[in-house]
């Protein structure tokens, strides 16, 4: 129950920060990857689905696209081999970068299939966020430890 409340608060904070500061559009995806890496693919895909669903309400994309792509990203990060060091800042940056690209690709494909809109895979200024991924991971860890005693890797 505490975990559900934790995820609910986290998603709310991410969504509201996205509304208040439109520059933080990647924050949700970073959080999903963080959860996927540490809590496994089941939690990653669940958080990805709900965060994508909520994010989809405000996003200009077709409703359902983000819930699909975020759920897939959360699942895949939870399936990454155990030998990948999730504490390594460089690994974090690379995983998030690939995750963002992957998510965008899925979104474009889905938009094409269901709406016929031909999307463009653009690498915008928001990718600067990727550089600060280790910082966000540290913040998320602190945030987790504020609620729970320890953070164990379950993938």
């Amino acid at each position, binding site marked *: 129950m505490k975990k559900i409340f934790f995820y609910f608060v986290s998603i709310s904070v991410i969504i509201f920060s996205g509304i208040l500061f439109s520059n933080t559009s990647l924050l949700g995806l970073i959080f999903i990857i963080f959860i996927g890496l540490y809590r496994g693919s089941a939690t990653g895909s669940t958080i990805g689905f709900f965060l994508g669903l909520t994010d989809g309400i405000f996003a200009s994309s077709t*409703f359902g696209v983000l819930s699909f792509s975020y*759920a897939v990203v959360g699942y895949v990060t939870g399936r990454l081999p155990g030998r990948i060091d999730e504490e390594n800042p460089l690994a974090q940056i690379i995983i998030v970068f690939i995750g963002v690209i992957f998510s965008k690709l899925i979104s474009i494909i889905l938009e094409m299939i269901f709406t016929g809109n031909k999307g463009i895979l653009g690498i915008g200024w928001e990718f600067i966020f990727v550089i600060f991924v280790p910082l966000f991971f540290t913040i998320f860890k602190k945030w987790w430890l504020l609620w729970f005693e320890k953070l164990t890797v379950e993938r």
Partner: protein
Amino acid sequence: MYKKNPTILLSFYLIISILILSFNVNPSIKAARDFLFYVIISPYSKIDSAIFSVNRFGNNIKELVDAHQQILDLKNENKQLLTDLLKLKILEVENKRLTEILNYKKNLKRKINIARIIAKPSQQYYKSLIIDKGIDDNLKENRAVYGYYKNHFGIIGQLIDVSKNTSQVLLITNRISKIPGRIIPAGVDGIILGNETNELEMAWIPIDAEIKIGDEVVSSSASDIFPSGIPIGIIVSISQSGHLPFKSAQVKPTIPAFQLTDVFIE
């Protein structure tokens, strides 16, 4: 249980997502999306509006403080400008007066010094005044003193007491002043006496002299202090001197000495 089968869980999520996507144009899906949007955005809009109001209130206070400070600054600036304007006006008047004096001095053929009146006691209006030039400026006693007032030049007195840096001027209106004068155009001479009022008395005018009110009185060649022909005043009234064969005239001085700030000394 679901943790052991994450793939099934993902499949479930993907199916739901695809269903949502498939029925995206469905009005009920759209309505659900709008409802969720409203539920999430309405508290945010209230928070945003409150933050905006607080910011606006803060900005208003800041603007008020800034405006108040600007008003104070402008008031001070205005005061300073008014003071400067007053100074400029004083300087303008002074400049105009000095320019007139200098222009007049240029036209004079005689060598003239200009001195500033430094003391003019009210009880001495018609008796004397003190100027800021003395022996150091080559002044001596019994030198003629002139004044320039409203485009008129005329005699106002003579130096009687010259010290190092100051001198006393005996005014022609002083009771002890007696200078020879001539009425023009009649060309008759008389003695001009001061009586410590704003008028002079000209005595010893031959009784048959053809003079009238408005005639000009100038310095006579009989004077060894004043050069002849310098204006002294205008006749304002004429009277008989008892049974003697002379008459006298009241003369209004050309230059009101108490109005001056500078004098000319020959």
